[in-house]
């Protein structure tokens, strides 16, 4: 290790030590209060320095000077969304200072919703993002103790900023990932795969078939582009040889936010994963946390209120929709009251502590006293008459309910409604033919999670009419 690298690592670790100390020592109420103070500062800063936002507030008749309390903020500050922000404004007008001069990278969403959204990183904000990422990586995977290779399988050239560990940017090339792991298996203590869930499934399955000894390697996975089923995590864990009770032997965790804007909001950790896994298996815990009748658990994650202010408002379908205000001082494109379209509910740390205590499950309470987000992702469901519906999340749990079924399908599917009936088309993996009883098994699995009767058709890979051309560069559209 060179002197410069050594100093950098020491500095990074010192920063983490401070962060861990702060998170462990602060009272939950104190953390929330800090976030609320930061919110008002972030709002005033955006109103002053971001031309498009200044214009919007003026159009809506909002006087920034009059927003001095959280109550006033919630009452008067308008909501933003992808459609109202990105198509109608020049990107420079969305930036602090109204210029693009100090930007080091741009991001774009995949456009799968029909609207492209954009993010931008300055050198300073990139450094800040790297700090957050390395904190996460060290907390979970001890990257300063273990020689680590991070394999970035994210599509479209999305970068992962770190200052301390090597990164292989493979994009969505499974063969390249396998070649790298085979070549470097003896040179690293662990690998961290970062990618979107459908592609990670492909990488890990094909790796098993191509002789990657996953069970003999220490492999961690970070995903987050879309909602993942708990059964999906179990399936990947089964292929990788992960023991979910022993995080030091590998973890599969979700990190969610608005990745196209370079924003990480929610993070899982060992205890929140255990919490969701236990809730998935135990009706009493699941109903207490997510409501009576819940069959599919939302993701259970924590967030930093000092960095992101979260609210929920009734969404189009009446379910709570997540609204985000970014609080980072260095962000180039700050967003205030930005509607994400994600179904989510927040819960304070003391509220969670109380629920778990009542159920005698205090052992599942995370160490950091941060609030929780229960995130269901985009609300994707097909409704029938009588208010019944079947959702993409229910199908996702069903697809991975039985590993025999999971191993035959890509994970891509399409729900639709015709003549008052719901049809589910499921894509088989390339080169696979449906085994006898596959439809029956999937139907039985779906009945575990959804109340609606669904007609299921299993289609060979090439005959599945949706999304093959995307080749993992766009998100699957499930309806």
């Amino acid at each position: 290790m060179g002197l410069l690298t050594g100093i950098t690592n020491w500095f990074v670790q010192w920063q983490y030590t401070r962060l861990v100390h702060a998170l462990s020592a602060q009272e939950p109420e104190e953390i929330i209060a800090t976030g609320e103070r930061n919110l008002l500062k972030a709002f005033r800063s955006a109103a002053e320095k971001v031309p498009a936002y200044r214009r919007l507030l003026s159009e809506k008749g909002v006087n920034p000077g009059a927003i001095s309390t959280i109550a006033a903020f919630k009452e008067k500050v308008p909501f933003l969304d992808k459609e109202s922000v990105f198509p109608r404004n020049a990107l420079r007008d969305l930036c602090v200072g109204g210029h693009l001069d100090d930007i080091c990278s741009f991001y774009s969403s995949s456009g799968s919703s029909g609207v492209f959204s954009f993010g931008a990183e300055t050198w300073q904000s990139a450094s800040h993002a790297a700090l957050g990422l390395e904190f996460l990586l060290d907390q979970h995977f001890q990257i300063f103790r273990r020689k680590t290779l991070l394999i970035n399988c994210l599509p479209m050239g999305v970068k992962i900023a770190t200052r301390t560990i090597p990164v292989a940017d493979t994009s969505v090339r499974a063969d390249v990932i396998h070649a790298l792991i085979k070549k470097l298996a003896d040179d690293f203590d662990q690998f961290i795969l970062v990618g979107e869930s459908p592609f990670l499934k492909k990488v890990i399955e094909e790796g098993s078939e191509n002789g990657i000894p996953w069970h003999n390697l220490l492999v961690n996975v970070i995903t987050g582009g879309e909602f993942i089923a708990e059964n999906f995590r179990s399936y990947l864990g089964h292929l990788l040889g992960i023991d979910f009770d022993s995080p030091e032997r590998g973890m599969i965790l979700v990190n969610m936010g608005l990745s196209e804007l370079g924003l990480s909001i929610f993070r899982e950790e060992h205890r929140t994963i255990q919490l969701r896994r236990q809730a998935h298996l135990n009706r009493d815990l699941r109903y207490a946390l997510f409501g009576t009748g819940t069959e599919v658990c939302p993701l259970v994650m924590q967030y930093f209120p000092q960095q992101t202010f979260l609210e929920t408002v009734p969404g189009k379908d009446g379910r709570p929709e997540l609204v985000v205000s970014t609080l980072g001082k260095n962000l180039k494109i700050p967003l205030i009251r930005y509607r994400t379209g994600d179904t989510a509910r927040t819960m304070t740390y003391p509220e969670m502590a109380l629920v778990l205590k009542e159920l005698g499950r205090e052992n599942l309470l995370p160490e950091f006293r941060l609030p929780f987000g229960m995130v269901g992702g985009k609300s994707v469901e097909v409704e029938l008459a009588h208010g019944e519906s079947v959702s993409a999340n229910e199908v996702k749990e069903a697809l991975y309910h039985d590993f025999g079924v999971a191993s035959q399908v890509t994970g891509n599917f399409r729900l639709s409604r015709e003549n008052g009936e719901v049809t589910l088309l499921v894509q088989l993996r390339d080169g696979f033919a449906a085994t006898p009883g596959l439809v029956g098994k999937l139907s039985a699995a779906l009945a575990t999670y959804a109340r609606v009767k669904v007609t299921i058709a299993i289609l060979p890979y090439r005959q599945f009419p949706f999304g093959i051309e995307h080749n993992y560069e766009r998100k699957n559209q499930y309806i």
Partner: protein
Amino acid sequence: MTNFTQQWSQNYGNLVDRNIGLLTEEQQERLRTSKVAVFGMGGIGGTAFEVLVRCGIGTFSIVDKDTFEPTNMNRQIFAYPHTMGRMKIDVAAEWAKQINPDIRVGTFERVGEDNIAEIIRDADVIVQGIDQLKPCIIASRKAREMGIPLVEGWAIPYGNVRTFTAQTPTLEEAYGLPTIGRDVSAITDEEFTKLGIELLLGLGKIEGVADFYNEGARKRIAAGRLTSFAPMVWLTSVLMAMETVKVLLNWGEIAFGPNFTLYDPFKHRIPRGTP
């Protein structure tokens, strides 16, 4: 007072109409909202499953890796000429749907340490009707860890049932198995087979069994070829189904392990029940 019947479909109301009286509507609703995991869809598990379906239990997980074959016909309730060669779980799930169209049945072809938690997810009771030791141990260990009662019975020696909970000795302790404290993955299939046969032969220690199971039957079991007879099999299945309902409703006296609760129809008596 809650009127539970308003939540029932007409099909369900018809199905359970004759239960009411012996069961209250509240107890019936408890059965409707309960989940039972049944391991094995053969002689024991299949019959217990059908009885439980007819009792009105609303949700099941069922497990079996086999297809029906002609030698199942003497005792397996879903074995018919037209079901030969079909997966037992598929046939059983279809059958259950005909009895109760509202029922939810999750099916699994195998039991492993990697999928046992999903099989018994949300289960209120486990019915153990598999005649192989490995899945039996996997299920019983996970059941204990997750706090789910496990009802066990065997096709031999005669009608028998017992229930394991967190308060009873474990199934492995009850049989005195040398598997206690060992990882399942560290035990070979050969050892499981050997222990399974020993376990079955151990049932012969129960008082009076030798009167019914002659030397020929015992030699056959020792050779790994099970012997079974529909009245005995179904008797145990019905006892297990009844025990399951009792556990679900916290009703009557539960047959807690390690002792078996037995009925010997051969001599019309209640033997002492320790294997």
